[in-house]
């Protein structure tokens, strides 16, 4: 479809026309004049779609499966039923670690794996340390050993790499004020600010498992990918793992959003010297995109308190712990009273001193 160009005055919105004498566009309504270059920039900006476009290519094993499969434990002979995406688990009867190599072989093989660096005991200690400094935590929750289950899980992740090119335009203003004997004057200068930039992104992790809460998996970052090694089945023994069930194309939207926000922030940081800066429009194009399939180490801890299960996750490489904690309402009321009473006393003293000084 042909583009329709609308030339309107940026100041008052009235139609403007080219003035042959001034060699500029002039508004008959407010009298402002604009250079051809500026109006072309405004028209280009108004006609850009402001969307993010990406080219990630297609990952070699995109595709999803559902259902259950049955395996027999080689140690005790018991039948183990598990999800078709299960990669590593343990026998529910004898605890023997089982790695189902079909789900991580050939086309389904992860490119890299970050081996666990922290053990089960470190996860327990990290959880206890995580409780420290949380003054509203119920005492029973702290004192009781209510950890239900600790599992070392290799979570499937997509790692996105790309070059990003972004542009953005802003409405910016500068203000000057002065006065004479009768009046105060405020002049506001309006500017059209445009910025274009590029950056390379490496290994943006997006979890590829629908079973894992996205907010928890995101909060576990950063992972140090210099410790990543080519995938070997042996790393999985004794841990739990599922194959991805969110394909790389579905996961890419989360990576794109993060790239877009970062590029917008980087461009915005280059706009200086204005009183106000408001974004008009912007777009991001991602190119040379590649995706890697990785297994990253996470300790999952489940605790139970007053019939509610609380989930905690720890980065198996760095030890970073995330999770939600209950709040003791009684303690909250107590701390509110203390804070209010102390501040009331302090304000009263200040008021009294002010009165005495006067």
């Amino acid at each position, binding site marked *: 479809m042909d583009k329709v160009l609308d030339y309107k005055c940026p100041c008052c919105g009235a139609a403007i026309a080219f003035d042959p004498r001034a060699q500029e566009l002039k508004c008959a309504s407010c009298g402002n004049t604009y250079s051809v270059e500026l109006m072309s920039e405004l028209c280009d900006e108004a006609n850009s779609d402001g969307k993010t476009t990406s080219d990630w290519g297609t990952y070699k094993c995109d595709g999803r499966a559902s259902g259950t499969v049955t395996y027999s434990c080689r140690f005790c002979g018991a039948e183990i039923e598990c999800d078709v995406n299960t990669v590593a688990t343990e026998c529910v009867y004898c605890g023997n670690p089982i790695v189902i190599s079909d789900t991580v072989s050939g086309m389904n093989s992860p490119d890299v794996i970050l081996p666990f660096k922290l053990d089960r005991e470190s996860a327990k200690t990290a959880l206890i340390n995580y409780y420290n400094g949380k003054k509203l935590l119920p005492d029973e929750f702290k004192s009781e050993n209510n950890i239900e289950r600790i599992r070392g899980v290799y979570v499937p992740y997509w790692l996105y790499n790309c070059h990003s090119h972004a542009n953005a335009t802003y409405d910016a203003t500068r203000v000057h004020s002065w006065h004479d004997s009768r009046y105060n004057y405020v002049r506001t*200068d309006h500017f059209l600010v445009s910025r274009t930039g590029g*950056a390379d992104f*490496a290994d943006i992790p997006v979890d590829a498992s629908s079973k894992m809460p996205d907010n928890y998996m995101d909060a576990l970052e950063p992972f140090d990918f210099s410790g990543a090694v080519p995938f070997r089945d042996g790393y999985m023994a004794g841990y739990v793992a599922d194959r991805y069930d969110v394909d790389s194309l579905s996961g890419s939207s989360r990576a794109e959003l993060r790239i877009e926000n970062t590029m917008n922030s980087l461009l915005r940081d280059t706009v200086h010297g204005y009183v106000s800066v408001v974004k008009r429009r912007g777009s991001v194009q991602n190119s040379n995109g590649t995706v890697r399939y990785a297994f990253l180490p996470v300790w999952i801890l489940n605790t139970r308190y007053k019939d509610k299960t609380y989930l905690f996750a720890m980065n198996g490489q760095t030890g970073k712990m995330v999770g939600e904690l209950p709040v003791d309402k009684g303690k909250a009321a107590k701390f509110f009273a203390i804070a209010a009473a102390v501040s009331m006393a302090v304000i009263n003293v200040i008021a009294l001193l002010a009165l005495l000084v006067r």
Partner: protein
Amino acid sequence: MKIKIIVSLIMAITLVTCLSACVCAADQYDPVRQDSVAVQIVKTELIILAISCVIGLLVILAMKSKHAPPKQNTTAGGNLKGKSFVLLSHRDMFMYSTTTRTPRQTQQNSGRRPR
């Protein structure tokens, strides 16, 4: 238990100070504000109480935020390759300006009462 006693003590002292100030100044009159001094003290104490409650609420919200579930990551700043960000072009173009004019306040039109 100790904390309860401390809180009660602070509240009691504040209340006693306020009441005694009111009693002492009960018959005094402030001609500028056209109000009795006792009423002014009560008003001030009510404002201080409201401010204290707001401070208490802010403290609790700050403490509660440590218990909240983790938030989803919305940026990828940690995944930028070194110092790969390059500003390819930048333009700042003047569009137009607007000027506002307001009369200056002088002694004649400032609205103050002459002393």
